[in-house]
């Protein structure tokens, strides 16, 4: 496997043509959202200029082409995660909507008084709030898997929390705060033994590593297009066919029905049952193009590249005495995302000052307040890599950190 060449890759991304106050744009906020290559931008343009119609509704050329483009994008997603059937792929708006759909629809069927739902304490708010509402309404119990000092989930904790009272386990594949890759194979395996279904929030993992959903054996799996070079406004819900078939619809309206009477209605088969109203075809097309791009580069090469950058960054950061890393300090089972704090300096000041050097990072609670409380930090700063980042980016970031210290009156 030859290494990827990020400087070549950057040429595909028009955003990097700009300079931020005469600095190179060092974009290290990929955990929040990623940039788009021309290939994705052009695919959306082509669709808009040549093939736009309302799919599934008309018998004219444009409608047919829009339907074909939509279905093709779905097939690309199916192949990308190696799902068995195309009907197992539902397009949503983003990860958040996917989880809301599951909590509403699956939760309604599965959760009764006393039934337990297990999350990790590191979940994103989008994987907490829908479950809080569900247990409030249905009388279930919400339990949390805690992390050890290294930000990892131990086998004992899995067994302690996931028991035969557990009906649903919903957990992020990779933490968007700590970068930890959770042992989801073990979790899925144990949960299935306990008779629970498992939802995996793949928002942070899918863009950065090869997902084989059949091998993982997750029951439901969700992610967002905008974190993997695709457009905003398009997300994915994968579900095993037999599970999706059992779930009642979530959004109701046009295109998801079979027969509608004044007082009742019957629903269309999968996947339409879960796709109410006019879908985001251009979003799907853009996501399809993003997948083509990622596959052309190769997910394994992307993963390797990010590992290299993470190792390099951890090394340089740990050499600064005033920097603390939150989460795993070694490379094992972690992705290319690093949370850190700097002595005496608030994360927001770090982000603002780095920004003035063209370095884009994120600071705050990262939509994970329960984890922040658990770690007992009010906020952290976070950098997150993607295929277009370089060692030079890391160097500029580290230079920036030193400057932050200087600006705020501390020696470096």
């Amino acid at each position, binding site marked *: 496997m030859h290494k990827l060449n990020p400087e070549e890759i950057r040429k595909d991304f028009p955003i990097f043509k700009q300079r931020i106050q005469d600095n190179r744009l060092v974009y290290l906020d990929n955990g929040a959202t990623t940039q788009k290559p021309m290939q994705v931008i052009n695919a959306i343009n082509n669709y808009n200029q040549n093939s736009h119609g309302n799919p599934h509704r008309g018998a004219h050329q444009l409608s047919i082409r829009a339907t074909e483009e939509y279905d093709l994008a779905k097939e690309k997603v199916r192949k990308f995660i190696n799902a068995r059937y195309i009907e197992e792929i539902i397009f949503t708006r983003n990860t958040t909507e996917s989880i809301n759909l599951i909590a509403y629809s699956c939760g309604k069927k599965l959760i009764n008084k006393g039934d337990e739902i297990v999350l990790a304490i590191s979940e994103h708010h989008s994987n907490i709030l829908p479950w809080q509402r569900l247990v409030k309404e249905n009388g279930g119990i919400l339990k949390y898997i805690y992390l050890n000092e290294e930000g990892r989930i131990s086998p004992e904790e899995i067994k302690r929390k996931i028991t035969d009272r557990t009906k649903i386990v919903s957990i992020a594949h990779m933490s968007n705060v700590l970068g930890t890759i959770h042992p989801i194979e073990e979790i899925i395996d144990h949960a299935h033994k306990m008779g629970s279904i498992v939802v995996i929030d793949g928002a942070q993992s899918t863009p950065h590593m090869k997902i084989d959903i059949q091998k993982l054996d997750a029951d439901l799996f969700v992610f967002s297009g905008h974190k993997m070079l695709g457009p905003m406004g398009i997300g994915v819900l994968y579900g095993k066919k037999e599970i999706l078939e059992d779930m009642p619809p979530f959004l109701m309206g046009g295109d998801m029905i079979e027969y509608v009477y004044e007082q009742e209605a019957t629903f269309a088969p999968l996947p339409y049952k879960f796709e109410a109203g006019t879908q985001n075809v251009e979003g799907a097309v853009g996501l399809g193009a993003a997948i083509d791009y990622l596959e052309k580069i190769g997910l394994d090469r992307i993963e390797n590249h990010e590992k290299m950058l993470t190792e390099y960054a951890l090394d340089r950061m740990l050499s600064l005495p005033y920097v603390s890393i939150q989460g795993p300090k070694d490379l094992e089972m972690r992705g290319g995302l690093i949370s850190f704090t700097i002595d005496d300096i608030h994360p927001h000041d770090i982000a603002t000052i780095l920004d003035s050097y063209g370095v884009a990072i994120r600071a*705050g609670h990262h939509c994970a307040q329960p984890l922040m409380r658990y770690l007992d930090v009010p906020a952290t700063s976070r950098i997150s890599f993607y295929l277009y980042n370089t060692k030079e980016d890391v160097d500029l970031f580290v230079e920036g950190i030193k400057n932050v210290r200087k600006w*705020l009156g501390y020696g470096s």
Partner: protein
Amino acid sequence: MDLNSIYSQLIMEHNKSGHNKRHLPNPDITEKGHNPSCGDDITLELKLNGDIIENASFTGVGCAISQASTSMMIDLIKGITIEEALTLVKTFIGMIKKEIEDEKELEKLQDALVLQNISNMPARVKCAVLAWHTLKEALSDK
């Protein structure tokens, strides 16, 4: 954005000195203010004498901008009336919203005038105004 205009000497001094960051003995008013999106969290303590703010202090965590803004505000309000303090709050928020540009009026804000440029940094505006909103809240039913 010019970093100098935000992270000025004055802000640094206020941020680091902490001369207003402590508890008051027997405060008359204790008011919490928080900024959920940042995690900034401060508590103002006020000692009144009639309608005069005799003493004031704060505790809590936050970025340099929110800490400095709080400290500057406390320097300003010690020894003035509630009404005068509320007028200062109006002036400060007016400055940040760019609704007040009259230099004479803004001068009353003294040190806090250096925060004028924060209005060019929408993501940080909340940090600058937190203490002031909290003070308004604290005095609102007096």
